[in-house]
């Protein structure tokens, strides 16, 4: 999208919920759901005297996230109190990190319309989530199940210039945290939340414009739309001389617009100070090394490896979008990765989409797909018959060799049998045979169709074509 003389400056704050069993500072369950206020204890409800103690798994996940985002890991990070008053924050402050976050100075790489992009990660810090409040006119209701659940807040530099770039950055972030297993990336349940900071300036200006924060956008498509709307709104403000206010706005997907939520408090209004309940979080190099050594392969490296196996860039990207699909592909690849990629992308994904299933619920296991491809490659069945077998596998879950045996679908490669079929077809269609012999080569297709039909699709196409050509020439 072009904005004439203006350029957009976009930074994202992504909150990633770390999938630990217990909360960041207490032993209450951190799992989604549960009865109202079931996952609470004196600690996460802010009872006086309760001492918050850090969850070691959350720290490990924090380090893992930082390393995956190419950050440096601070060996002495500090928890700080961020003070604000809201009933879903029972202590009256959130335990977060301020001037000494766990992770700093990293980057995330992705491609946007074929062009490589690298966005700086300024910081990624640990903090606890707040509870959930619902509002009912003359009262509000509070559920503290989520209060204290561990989060990483990942802050990008204001380096992005378009809504598309911001959405792709967020998609890549989700992919990374899912690959390394620190977050399930479920946007509906709020495991991954995205706040977008948007400002505009005249092209060539180095000074940043007044920034507006758009909060709580729960899909990547909406990130794109909300930012696009906001850029246009700010340009309209500039053009009409209306001031742009530093504020928080919400996005309404039904109306496709943003609206003002509250005037953004200045940062120092939170009156951060080191939490006296916490000691310095000391990380040893050995722990960082251990996390690094156990780091699973990241999506970008996996896609690169797939290309080296002969896949197109597009196929490699498609297959690495979701961790489960990439895993499935690797198990199905066997000796013919290219064929496995084709079957997954064109056949399996279509069936999954149509039946609204995840690949983990696929009735066809990766190993079964590998067997099907092996049957084609060995010449046991033709590619055409394979589609029939695939459909049968999808509905019955049976192994392909069983289906081929049960239905008698083995490809006919026996030249004698095919010659017999071809002879019959030519004898039954003397007029067309004469046409072919008089030079109308187009009729060849007609004979292929007839002979294939007569063989119930089982004749090896290569062998049959060769015999047909020979016999027609007579």
């Amino acid at each position, binding site marked *: 999208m072009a904005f004439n003389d203006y350029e957009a400056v976009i930074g994202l704050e992504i909150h990633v919920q770390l999938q630990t069993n217990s909360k960041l500072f207490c032993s209450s369950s951190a799992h989604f759901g549960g009865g109202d206020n079931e996952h*609470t204890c*004196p600690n996460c409800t802010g009872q006086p005297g309760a001492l918050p*103690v*850090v969850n*070691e798994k959350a720290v490990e996940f924090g380090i893992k996230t930082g390393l995956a985002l190419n950050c440096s890991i601070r060996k002495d990070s500090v928890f700080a109190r961020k*003070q604000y008053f809201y009933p879903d924050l029972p202590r009256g402050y959130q335990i977060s990190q301020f001037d000494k976050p766990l992770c700093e100075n990293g980057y995330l790489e992705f491609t946007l319309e074929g062009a490589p992009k690298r966005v700086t990660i300024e910081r990624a810090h640990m903090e606890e989530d707040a509870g959930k409040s619902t509002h009912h*006119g003359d009262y509000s209701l509070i*559920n503290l199940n989520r209060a204290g659940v561990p989060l990483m807040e990942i802050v990008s530099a204001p380096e992005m210039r378009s809504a598309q770039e911001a959405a792709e950055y967020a998609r890549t972030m989700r992919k990374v945290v899912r690959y390394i297993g620190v977050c399930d990336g479920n946007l509906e349940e709020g495991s991954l939340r995205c706040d977008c900071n948007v400002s505009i300036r005249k092209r060539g200006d180095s000074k940043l414009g007044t920034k507006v924060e758009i909060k709580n956008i729960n899909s990547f498509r909406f990130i794109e739309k909300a930012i696009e709307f906001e850029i246009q709104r700010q340009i309209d403000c500039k053009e009409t001389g209306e001031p742009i206010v530093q504020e928080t706005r919400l996005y309404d997907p039904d109306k496709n617009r943003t609206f003002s939520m509250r005037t953004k408090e200045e940062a120092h209004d939170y009156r951060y100070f080191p939490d006296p309940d916490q*000691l*310095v979080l000391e990380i040893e190099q050995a722990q960082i090394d251990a996390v690094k050594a156990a780091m699973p392969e990241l999506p970008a490296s996996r896609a690169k490896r797939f290309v080296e196996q002969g896949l197109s860039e597009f196929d490699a990207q498609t297959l690495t979008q979701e961790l489960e699909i990439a895993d499935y592909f690797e198990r199905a690849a066997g000796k013919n990765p290219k064929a496995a990629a084709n079957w997954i992308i064109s056949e399996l994904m279509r069936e999954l989409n149509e039946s609204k299933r995840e690949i983990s619920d696929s009735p066809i296991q990766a190993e079964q797909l590998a067997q099907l491809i092996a049957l084609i490659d060995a010449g046991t069945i033709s590619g055409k018959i394979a589609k029939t077998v695939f459909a049968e596998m999808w509905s019955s879950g049976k192994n392909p060799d069983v289906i081929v045996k049960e239905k008698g679908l083995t490809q006919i490669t026996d030249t004698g049998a095919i010659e017999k079929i071809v002879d019959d077809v030519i004898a039954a269609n003397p007029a067309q045979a004469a046409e072919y012999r008089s030079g109308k080569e187009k009729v060849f297709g007609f004979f292929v169709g007839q002979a294939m039909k007569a063989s119930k699709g089982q004749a090896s196409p290569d062998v049959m074509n060769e015999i047909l050509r020979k016999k027609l020439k007579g």
Partner: protein
Amino acid sequence: MSKTEKLTLQAVQKVSKLARLKLTDSEMTSIQNQLSAVLENFEQIAQVNTDEVRPLVTPTEITQVLRPDVVEDFDSEKILANAPEKAGRLFKVPPVV
């Protein structure tokens, strides 16, 4: 803020508002004096040359003790029993929006 300058009344009002404290006019003046004294004290501390000193976050040498990631159930009824007002198992509070 320089040494001689007193904390302004507006600053005290802002801080009390952020801390959700309702102060009378006379309390406001008294707090203004006290806070100014506190800040003066810090200014005195700030005179000390700390170029070679590592920043101190907590005054102890103990290192952080972490907790294993294990869920321990707590009878949340005990928590809910403390709530002045409830709706089912939810805390009921004055309206916030």
